């Protein structure tokens, strides 16, 4: 099902949501420590993994992302006491819905990373990128989304 030319391997695009306190700082830490990871992940900073609206995930997939990463503080370490558990509940329900929509649940990853875990963050991202590369492109049919192209002009 690969639509990308054989010449270069498929490079997945991954949208990552990080919380302001732990995982985003973990990413910062990976940077400050000059750790290296695959350039396929593009991060969006939220204040807390609890802010993660399922709409964001659907939007990312519909918009052409091959996978989505959700990351927050370790359970018990949430800077808002326990909001990451709420993210966990949504995550588990979302996986089920995505599966029914034909999006392999492996394309949605939940990662707990503390501000000190730049190394873990790096490793996990690399693993995830490999995992998604193995799954191949998602190619969500976005033609339908550029609807306005097809639309007829309304009379003045």
């Amino acid at each position, binding site marked *: 099902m690969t639509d990308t030319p054989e010449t270069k391997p498929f490079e997945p695009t991954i949208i990552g949501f990080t919380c302001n306190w732990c995982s985003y700082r973990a990413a910062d830490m990976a940077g400050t420590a000059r750790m290296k990871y695959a350039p396929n992940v593009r991060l969006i900073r939220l204040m807390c993994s609890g802010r993660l*609206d399922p709409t964001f995930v*659907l939007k990312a997939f519909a918009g052409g992302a091959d996978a989505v990463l959700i990351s927050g503080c370790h359970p018990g370490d949430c800077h808002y006491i326990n909001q990451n558990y709420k993210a966990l509940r949504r995550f588990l*329900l979302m996986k089920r819905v995505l599966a*029914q929509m*034909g*999006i392999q649940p492996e394309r949605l990853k939940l990662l707990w990373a503390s501000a000190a875990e730049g190394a873990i963050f790096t490793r996990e991202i690399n693993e995830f990128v490999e995992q998604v590369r193995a799954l191949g492109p998602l190619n969500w049919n976005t033609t339908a989304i550029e609807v306005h192209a*097809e639309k*007829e002009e309304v*009379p003045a």
Partner: protein
Amino acid sequence: MSKPKFAMYWAASCGGCEIAVLNIHEKILDVDAAFEVVFWPVAMDAKYKDVEAMQDGEITLCLFNGGMRNDENEHIAKLLRRKSKIMVAFGSCACEGCIPGLANFRPIKELVDTAFSTISTDNPENIRPQTSYSMPEGAITIPTLNPMLKTLDQVVDVDYYMPGCPPESHQIAAVVDLVIAALNGKAELPPKGATIGAGNSTVCDECQRKRNVKLIKEFGRIQFTEADPELCLLEQGIPCNGIATRSGCNARCPSVGAQCIGCYGPAEGVVDYGARLIAGFASVIDSDDPVEIDKILDGLVDPAGQFYRFNLAGSLLRASKSAQKG
């Protein structure tokens, strides 16, 4: 001077919308008084060529119901769009796909197979309809199915949306009044793109049931639950879509003890209806333990079906992967 022209058309839909319109009782006379009905296949005989013959924008008000299932639907949608000043996506099918939109879960081939080769179908040679068939008299053609069902606004530009499966008659009546008043310069039409004939909040807003903070340890199906008639259904573990479904129906279902199934679609400004339900239902789960949470979630049989029953075609994802591949 001649009366403003009125049209109503059904694409992929069940006809319930037409009945709902007739259900406005004597108000239908006002419609007749105020409008000249030029095109309404269910109610009167009319030919496409009559419409084609009209001036662009000649029809003042077009209530279009049904989704875009085949090329004929799309053709007429585009035609009526051209001929109409006000194009209203009328009813859940036109607005968000509705039940016909559920087809977007499966590849179109499977659907056809189900339709033409299930035990209930007498089709020994296992024939499939051809889009065109030549006979001595000439070729007969029938419309080609789209791989995915689309909503009206995915094909043409829509002025107003009127949700509901079908829209509540009292809402239709209200809208009719409004349009008539507007035509006589006695009222302002709402801004283009607005949802009319419905509220901005959700069903809970109109629901009379008592409600507290919701902490669910188990989801149950309504047919297996002895529900408290006074208390919020979701609070009792019954997956009621009322929390996310647009108000306007006076909480018809919950008020008679049935869970809301979401025919009025998302509330004002919501991007994806299902996402709201995912968030809402996940939020009432009373557990932090992944294993237990999964156990609780097992109580929601077919979550996608539950969340996108009326909204799949209008949702962000629009159709399952297999349906997209056709």
